[in-house]
C-alpha cells in the first residue's frame, strides 16, 4: 500500500499512544508524547499508510474498527462499484484509534528525545530512543530501521547529539539484531531488572556523525547528483 515515513506531529500522538499500547508493555500517558513533540519535534517519526487519489482504504485493522461487529451490508458486496465507492466516501472515518485521517493509519513510530535530566552524569548533548515499534503485520519491510535512521539523522542535525542511547529487552532478538547488526549500536552494559516485569535490559549506544548518517546511504543505491535530467 502506500506506506510513507515522515516526521511525527502533534496530530499523530493519539495514534502513536494507541500503537504503543497495542505493541509494547511500556506505556506512557499522552502528555509524555506531547512533551516529546513539543521539546524535540525533530526527533520523532511515524510510518503511516496513505490514500492515493482513486483509493478508498480498507485494510486489515480497518474493518474491525467500528464498534458494532459489522453487519451484513458491508460483507455482502465487497466488489468495488462506483456506487459503493461514493457511498463510502461520505462515510465518517472509522472509529479506529490507529487512524489520523481517512486512509491514514499509524503502523509504526519512533519516539526520540534528547537527554534532559539535569542530574545526568554526562553533559555532552546526546539523544535517547524512548520507544520504537512497528505493527506485527507490517514487519519485515525494514520500517523500524528506516524510522531509526530518520530520527538519528535529525537529532544529530538539530540538536547536535553526539551519541544516542537506548535500552532493549534481553530476550528481544529482533530488536537486538536491528540495533547491533543493522545500525551498529554497541552494548554498553546490562541493566539488571530494568523492566517492570523484572527482565534485564541491554543498554546500547551509538556514536553519531552527521555525514555518515544520511538515511539513504544504507540503501547503497546510485547517488543522485541533483543535476541529471530525470525525464531524459
Amino acid at each position, binding site marked *: 500500500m502506500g506506506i510513507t515515513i515522515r516526521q511525527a506531529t502533534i496530530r499523530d500522538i493519539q495514534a502513536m499512544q494507541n500503537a504503543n499500547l497495542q505493541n509494547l508493555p511500556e506505556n506512557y500517558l499522552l502528555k509524555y508524547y506531547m512533551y516529546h513533540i513539543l521539546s524535540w519535534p525533530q526527533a520523532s517519526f511515524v510510518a503511516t499508510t496513505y490514500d492515493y487519489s482513486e483509493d478508498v482504504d480498507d485494510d486489515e485493522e480497518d474493518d474491525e474498527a467500528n464498534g458494532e461487529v459489522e453487519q451484513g451490508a458491508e460483507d455482502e458486496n465487497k466488489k468495488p462499484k462506483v456506487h459503493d465507492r461514493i457511498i463510502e466516501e461520505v462515510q465518517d472515518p472509522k472509529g479506529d484509534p490507529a487512524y489520523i485521517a481517512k486512509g491514514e493509519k499509524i503502523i509504526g513510530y519512533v519516539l526520540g528525545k534528547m537527554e534532559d535530566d539535569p542530574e545526568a552524569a554526562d553533559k555532552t548533548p546526546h539523544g535517547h530512543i524512548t520507544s520504537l515499534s512497528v505493527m506485527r503485520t507490517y514487519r519485515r519491510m525494514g520500517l523500524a530501521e528506516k524510522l531509526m535512521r530518520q530520527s538519528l539523522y535529525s537529532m544529530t542535525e538539530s540538536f547536535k547529539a553526539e551519541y544516542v542511547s537506548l535500552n532493549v529487552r534481553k530476550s528481544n532478538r*529482533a530488536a537486538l539484531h536491528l540495533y547491533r*547488526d543493522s545500525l551498529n549500536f554497541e552494548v554498553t552494559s546490562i541493566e539488571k531488572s530494568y523492566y517492570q516485569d523484572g527482565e534485564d535490559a541491554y543498554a546500547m549506544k551509538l556514536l553519531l556523525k552527521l555525514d555518515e548518517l544520511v538515511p539513504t546511504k544504507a540503501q547503497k543505491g546510485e547517488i543522485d547528483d541533483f543535476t541529471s535530467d530525470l525525464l531524459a
Partner: protein
Amino acid sequence: MGRDIVSLDDLTVNNLGVFKKINEVVLPTSYPEQWYKDSLNADQIVKLAYYSELPVAAIKAKTINTSHKAGTYEHMQQQQINSKIIPNAVYIESFAVLPAYRGVGIGKKLLDFIIEETKNKFVHEILLHVHIDNKTTIEWYEKHGFIKDDDIVKDYYKAQGLENPDAYILTLKV
C-alpha cells in the same frame, strides 16, 4: 538478513505454546500438561529450531539410567532420574519437525545439539523409542548412525491408542 536461515533457540515460558503445538501436530502421542511445564526446568535438555525466524521443530531429551527400563510410553515419560543414580544415557522423549520443513537439515541440527549435550554430560549413549510402523523415521535415525535393537518392546504405545502399539529401541553410541 545475514543470519543463518536455520537457528536454534531456548525454550522459554513465552514460546512454550510453540513447543506444544509442534508436538501436537506432528506426533501421534500426547504429553501431559505437567510434562510441558517441567520442560522449562533448568536441568532439561530441550531446544526449538527456527527456519527463517519461524519455529518449526523441537526436541526434548533427558538423562536416564538404562538399568531402570520402563516398559510403556507413559512410564518412560514420567520417569525422572533420582539424584543418587548416575545416568548412563540420554533419552529422547520428543522430537518433531513440521512436515513442510523436512529435508532442509533442521533435524540434523537438533540431533547435533543433543549429541553435543550428551558429550558434555560425559555420557556415551543416546536412545529412544520409535513406533514400529514408522518406517521413515526409523530410516532417518539409521541414516544418522542409530542402531535398531532387535527386541521389540511389546505394547509400548498401547495406552496411547495406536494401532499396532509396539516399539523399537534405537541407540546411538557417542
